[in-house]
């Protein structure tokens, strides 16, 4: 139930309730009995009536007699009028089945056979087409193979020709190269024929060829010799210088001594001293003499070596 209907019902209920309440309120009732008294309902009619809820009832009945059912109405068959006539179709009178069925059968069988023949013909045609196609395919393949064979042959021949041509070119090239090589070789030989003497001359002139011993002597021996000579000379000079210094010393000392008055006791000492000094100078003289001799010997030796 939809909400407006429910609302209507509720409203109706409320209205009825409200009506009932108002009616109850509006209905005037008898006032309440006084104290000690009681209200009683009394009939004020002429004749008293027994009031009760139950109504007095009396039962009565009636019954029909037993009768039979009404029989059904008989069928109304109107009286017969006119003459009776009947007819019957015997076998073979309407039509002859065998004759009539022939065209129908012919059509049926004819159509079926025609359909079958068509299908067979189609199949045959299809088979023919296939075989035709196969034959064509074979021919095509054979021709194709022939084409490929000829192509292959042609390719081989071309390749062969190309190879031979290249070989020939190679051969020509090699020949040319060899001829050039030979010519170059001859020319070079001639050109270089007098190369060697001139080269040697130049080298010789610029000092590249030397006698090794000579060079050796020049480079090693002579400097050494010179240095040795220098050394020897230096020694000589040193010796002379030493000698000079010795002589000077001696001379200075003698001078000193000779400038002093010679004491008697000092003769022994100076005699010793001069002997010592004589020994010393003698030694130094001897040394100096040895040295020059040695120097002489040394100078002799190198001179001899020279």
């Amino acid at each position: 139930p939809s909400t407006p209907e429910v609302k209507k019902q509720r409203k109706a209920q409320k209205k009825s309730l409200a009506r009932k309440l108002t009616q109850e309120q509006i209905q005037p009732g008898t006032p309440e009995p006084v104290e000690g008294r009681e209200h009683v309902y009394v009939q004020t009619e002429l004749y008293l009536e027994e009031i009760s809820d139950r109504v007095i009832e009396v039962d009565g009945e009636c019954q029909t007699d037993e009768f039979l059912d009404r029989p059904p109405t008989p069928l109304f068959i109107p009286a017969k009028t006119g003459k009776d006539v009947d007819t019957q179709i015997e076998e073979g009178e309407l039509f002859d089945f065998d004759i009539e069925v022939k065209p129908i059968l012919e059509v049926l069988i004819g159509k079926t056979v025609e359909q079958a023949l068509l299908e067979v013909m189609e199949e045959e045609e299809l088979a023919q087409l296939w075989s035709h196609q196969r034959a064509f395919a074979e021919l095509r393949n054979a021709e194709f193979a022939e084409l490929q064979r000829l192509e292959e042959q042609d390719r081989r021949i071309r390749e062969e020709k190309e190879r031979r041509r290249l070989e020939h070119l190679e051969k020509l090239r090699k020949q040319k190269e060899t001829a050039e090589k030979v010519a170059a070789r001859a020319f070079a030989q001639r050109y270089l024929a007098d190369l060697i003497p001139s080269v040697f001359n130049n080298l010789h002139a610029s000092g590249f060829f030397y006698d090794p011993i000579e060079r050796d002597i020049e480079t090693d021996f002579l400097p050494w010799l010179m240095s040795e000579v220098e050394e020897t000379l230096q020694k000589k000079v040193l010796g002379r210088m030493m000698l000079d210094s010795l002589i000077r010393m001696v001379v200075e000392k003698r001078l000193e001594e000779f400038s002093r008055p010679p004491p008697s006791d000092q003769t022994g000492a100076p005699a010793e001293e001069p002997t010592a000094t004589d020994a010393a100078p003698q030694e130094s003289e001897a040394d100096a003499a040895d040295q020059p001799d040695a120097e002489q010997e040394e100078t002799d030796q190198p001179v001899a070596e020279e």
Partner: protein
Amino acid sequence: MAQPRISAYLPPDIDPTKAPLAFGRRALPKLNEELQSPELLTQQRALMALCDLVHDPEKVYQAIALGFLDNLKTLLVHHDQIVRQKTTEVLSIMALHSIGRQGLIQSGVISALTGLLDDPVDICRKNTHQIIDMMAKLPEGAGGVLRANLIPPLVLKLKTELDEIQELILDTLSNCLRVEVSEALAAGAVTVLKEKLSHSSTVIRSKAAWVLLEISSHAEGKIAVCKEGVIPLLVSLLEDTQPEVQVNTTGALMFAAVTPQGRSSAMGAEAIPPLLKLVAEETSKARLNAIKTLTLLAELPEGRQTLLDHRDTFQRCLDDPSEAVQRAAQIAITVIEWKP
């Protein structure tokens, strides 16, 4: 209440699995709407009815004009297997008609078929392969198959599928590889085909040899065939008793022997005696291919020497009724007698 059905018993010749067809031109549009209905039973019944209608080329034309192919494409990935099976059947019958093929190429059904290659139901896969096979017979169809990158999955399937489906795959591959061969070589087709050459079924052997023929008609195919050493196998197959196998094998050898390596490996595998036998047979279908192969082998010096003794075989071939055989025999004799 009044109903269109008069009695509770259906008429005796109605198939309850098919949807009732509306009259005349209204039949196909009504089926189109039924195909899009959300109820499974309606879709199935519509598909069954469509299967029967599609045998008629006019109905195919009308169906494609009405845009059936888009609905069928969405139904290809349906979860119910009967729907998928019937859809693929409808598409395969459509692919038998030229209009159907054109329509299938234009609406790009081939790429939608890639998902169905792994279908668990056998019939769905067989129908899918039938569709792809029919499409590949057209040049545009073969191009479409190549563009949809179907070749690597097909080569993989070749290893694992049932025999009938393998035949279909081999047919498809032979038609597609005539155009382009690099993808198949990358997927290792030559190895798989080598195995198939020794299969027990004649049809599979002959078809595998045919595919090898198509592969070796391309230059990179020839290199791959020589490298994998298929030539000795092919030579041993020359002795097979079935004529189709012989024809295809000689064809494959013919193409493979064009390169020098192929020629030398064929000589090494002693291909000349069986080939001569094939040439000598008057009614052999493989005659043309065998003569061509011998011509190729005669370009090698050893081959020429051997074949100089068998010149009369080729002379007899000059009387063959087929003109191509005569020409080939003439060329063969010229090559054999050539002196450097």
